[in-house]
């Protein structure tokens, strides 16, 4: 037994490395889960005045970080529109991240606007507070503004059904 110990160590180590090889390293768990959304005060995209974290808290909602330069944002746009409509509609707050304001407005005119509010984060400071590193990113917050889930990359019907809906149903109870 004792002679075989190095072989055993090697096998454990090998299994560990092999597992890591097939793990998705691009999605990093957010330390913000379970914490309130960061404070911010940003200009509105399509209206006068500022929008702050206090303004958007009150309902179970999504915070979606998007930009016109982001490919995934285009991919998920129709789904966002669907989620914003109908009896099961969920408020979606947009954070327009490091974008050109006029192209962002045109983008929404052409493709429809799923957002109840859009804050413009031109400098990217609020995005840093949200720990954003790749648009699109979608946060699920409860009626107290606590973050319950974060999805990085384009939202899909599957992700919505498997990740978001169970949490939303739990929050509603």
């Amino acid at each position: 037994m004792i002679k075989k110990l190095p072989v055993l160590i090697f096998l454990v180590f090998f299994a560990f490395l092999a597992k890591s090889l097939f793990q998705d390293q691009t999605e990093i768990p957010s330390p913000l889960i379970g914490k309130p959304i960061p404070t911010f005060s940003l200009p509105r995209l399509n209206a006068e005045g500022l929008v702050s974290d206090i303004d958007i808290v009150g309902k179970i909602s999504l915070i979606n970080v998007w930009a016109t330069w982001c490919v995934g944002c285009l991919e998920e746009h129709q789904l966002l529109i669907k989620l914003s409509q109908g009896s099961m509609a969920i408020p979606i707050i947009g954070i327009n991240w490091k974008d050109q304001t006029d192209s962002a407005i045109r983008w929404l005119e052409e493709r429809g606007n799923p957002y109840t509010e859009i804050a413009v984060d031109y400098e990217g400071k609020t995005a840093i507070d949200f720990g954003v590193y790749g648009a699109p990113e979608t946060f699920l917050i409860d009626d107290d503004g606590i973050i319950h889930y974060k999805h990085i990359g384009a939202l899909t019907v599957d992700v919505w059904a498997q990740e978001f809906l169970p949490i939303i149903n739990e929050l509603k109870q």
Partner: protein
Amino acid sequence: MKRKILTFLSVFVIAIGSSTAMDGLTPEQEALYQSIVHEVRCLVCQNQSIAESNAELAKDLRIEIANQIKDGKTEQDIKNFLLNRYGDFVLYEPSFNKKTVFLWLSPLLLLLLIFGWYRKISLN
């Protein structure tokens, strides 16, 4: 020849132009800035530090770090700022906590195991 000189000079202009985040830092602050930006992982392009990366986010983080240094924040303040937003993965040298205890101690554990094994073998 003239063209060569121009090319040569333009390299400097580009180099100067890209270092705007460090404007207005004292030499000590600049040293601190350099040591931090080389330790922060660019999450968009995971195998580079934010010092090396041209990603927009890396630029934003460089500016943020420089501004915090100007405001008199310490290295630990700035690292905590990043950890609270991006998690342990953002630093190349992860902090020692409950989640990283195995990561930090496993080499020692392995060494002890091997040492123990070696002694057993040589005693036999």
